């Protein structure tokens, strides 16, 4: 094989330099354990809990909202107080549901960092945390949505919600046409993570 055709090796995780923040996080973890504030076991459980969270909980809430108007009203008033009706823990950080209509399409972002309703959607996708998404979606939301394959009509207002530190948002997408015969579980299957962020529409 000639020199020109050599492929670079994929770097191993320890090949990149350790950053200040990684060192600080590690030092903090060691201190909390040494001082008995946390145990390694408690930390492991937290990480495992975070790993199993995914968008399925959010999708169940949306499917119930599509089939039960009163539930939807309660969800719009308080996601945190209403989610336990389905056995879902939405945590203590207040989550506000924003409902898509024929007049308004909602999209969520955190321009300052990466605030996200992790209790209902799991860990955010990498693009949600990228500088490109965070800076562009407030300025040119239609161009960003188009890159996701999502076209919003000219007669619909695109409303972008920029979370700060204290509130999180969950988009309630519009129920797709022609889904009258579907039960709640089948409806939940149409609700993707991205349509609860607002960058996509439910599966049709």
């Amino acid at each position, binding site marked *: 094989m000639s020199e020109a055709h050599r492929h670079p090796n994929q770097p191993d995780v320890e090949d990149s330099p350790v950053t200040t923040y990684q060192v600080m996080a590690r030092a903090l973890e060691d201190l909390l354990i040494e001082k008995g504030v946390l145990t390694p076991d408690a930390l492991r459980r937290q990480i495992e809990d975070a790993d199993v969270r995914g968008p399925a909980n959010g999708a169940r809430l949306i499917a119930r909202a599509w089939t039960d108007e009163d539930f939807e009203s309660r969800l719009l008033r308080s996601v945190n107080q209403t989610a336990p009706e389905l056995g879902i823990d939405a945590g203590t950080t*207040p989550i*506000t549901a924003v409902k898509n209509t024929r007049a308004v399409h909602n999209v969520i972002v955190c*321009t*300052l960092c990466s605030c996200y309703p992790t209790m209902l959607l799991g860990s955010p996708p990498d693009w949600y945390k990228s500088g490109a998404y965070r800076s562009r979606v*407030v*300025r*040119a*939301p*239609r*161009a960003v949505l188009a890159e996701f394959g999502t076209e919003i009509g*000219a007669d619909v*207002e*695109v*409303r*972008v*919600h*920029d*979370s*700060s*530190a*204290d*509130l999180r948002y969950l988009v309630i997408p519009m129920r797709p046409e022609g889904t009258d015969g579907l039960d709640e579980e089948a409806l939940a299957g149409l609700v993707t993570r991205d349509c609860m962020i607002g960058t996509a529409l439910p599966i049709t």
Partner: protein
Amino acid sequence: MSARFALGETVRVRAAYPPGHVRTPFYVRGRTGIVDAVAGTYRNPEELAYGRGGELALPLYRVRFSGVELWADGAERATDSVVVDILEHWLEPAQGGIG
């Protein structure tokens, strides 16, 4: 602490640029919007970030800005909007509506 601004009121974000852990994005500073919701009271993250108490809870507002107010001719569509969570100490009354 009772909220100084009401739902539907026109407010302006202070055009201030203090250093530190500030939770008001640059792109709305000096801009005028409408109070979309009065969203409860929260301890000030600009204090909490430095280990100070921030005991005085501040009202938090969801303020809606039009695309044209934020980006002028650069807005994709004048009627699209951005809603931003802003603590009360960043807001002042706006005279003469949105300009």
